[in-house]
């Protein structure tokens, strides 16, 4: 026993014949509306058959459609992002700061190295103060001079107590 929907589908497809067709047509409440709907369904079926070739590769169609949608929506989205965040994001600011600090340190070092004075000074050694203990060496006198040709400064102490040779021991 077919249901009404099965009979309706079979009628649309012109599969109903004979007594079954007569009984179905008699059961329709509005024959004119049913005929109009049948014609509409046939038109739709015809249209879908024509489009069957285009729909044969569904994945490719879907991919094309998605790409086109992306193309259309991408510029709008990036413009919106730029407006919302600007070019100087927090991360870029942080990286900029760190990189600038590193470059600054490198430049400072280079400049300092260039300005480091040569290890060989042109100045002679200076004697700032000198003193002998008068109780230990009451006759001691001190003089100071510089031998510029030898680049040497000499502190010349006279009058210290002479010592025996054993004091030359290592």
């Amino acid at each position, binding site marked *: 026993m077919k249901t009404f929907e099965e009979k309706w589908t079979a009628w649309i497809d012109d599969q109903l014949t004979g007594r079954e067709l007569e009984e179905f047509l008699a059961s329709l409440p509005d024959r004119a509306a049913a005929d109009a709907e049948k014609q509409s369904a046939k038109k739709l079926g015809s249209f879908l058959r024509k489009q069957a070739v285009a729909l044969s590769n569904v994945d490719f169609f879907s991919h094309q459609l998605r790409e086109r949608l992306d193309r259309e929506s991408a510029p709008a989205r990036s413009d919106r992002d730029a407006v919302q965040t600007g070019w100087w994001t927090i991360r870029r600011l942080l990286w900029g700061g760190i990189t600038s600090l590193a470059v600054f340190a490198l430049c400072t070092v280079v400049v300092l190295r260039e300005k480091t004075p040569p290890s060989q000074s042109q100045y002679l050694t200076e004697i700032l103060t000198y003193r002998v203990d008068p109780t230990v060496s009451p006759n001691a006198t001190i003089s100071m001079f510089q031998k510029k040709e030898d680049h040497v*400064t000499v502190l010349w102490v006279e009058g210290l107590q002479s010592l*025996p040779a054993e004091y030359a021991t290592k």
Partner: protein
Amino acid sequence: MRARLLLPIAIFLVAIRIGGAALPEQTVWSGLIIASNSPPAEPTPAEITQIEGTLRKLFGYSQFQLIGQATKTLKTGEEDWLAASKYFSLQVDSRGEKADAYVLNLKLFQEQKLLLETKAKLSKASPLVIRGPQVGDGQLVIVLVVQ
């Protein structure tokens, strides 16, 4: 992300390292020398050879025997050290670096007795020579050199 963070840090550390090397460590050699005209018992020490000619001209002696020495590498410029022989000792107290020279407080002791006290600005290219007491037929000479 971690690798990108490491690069600037590495540059910074290299810069600091190079910067540290820009201030070179200096070594000060201090020697207690007996100058005499006695026949040499041993060859002149290498530390004295560079100043041997100057010492000969200054004191008129031909032989130089090293009886005590100290070599100190100055990192901060404020270090203390002692160059000593059996009877003499030279106490050096470095008080920092000024105009390419080290300010040194020097005390020469004969055993416990303070013979001489002086403050000098030791230039990096100019040795300091101190004439000490007569010892036997020779002379005690103190030399300080920035190497």
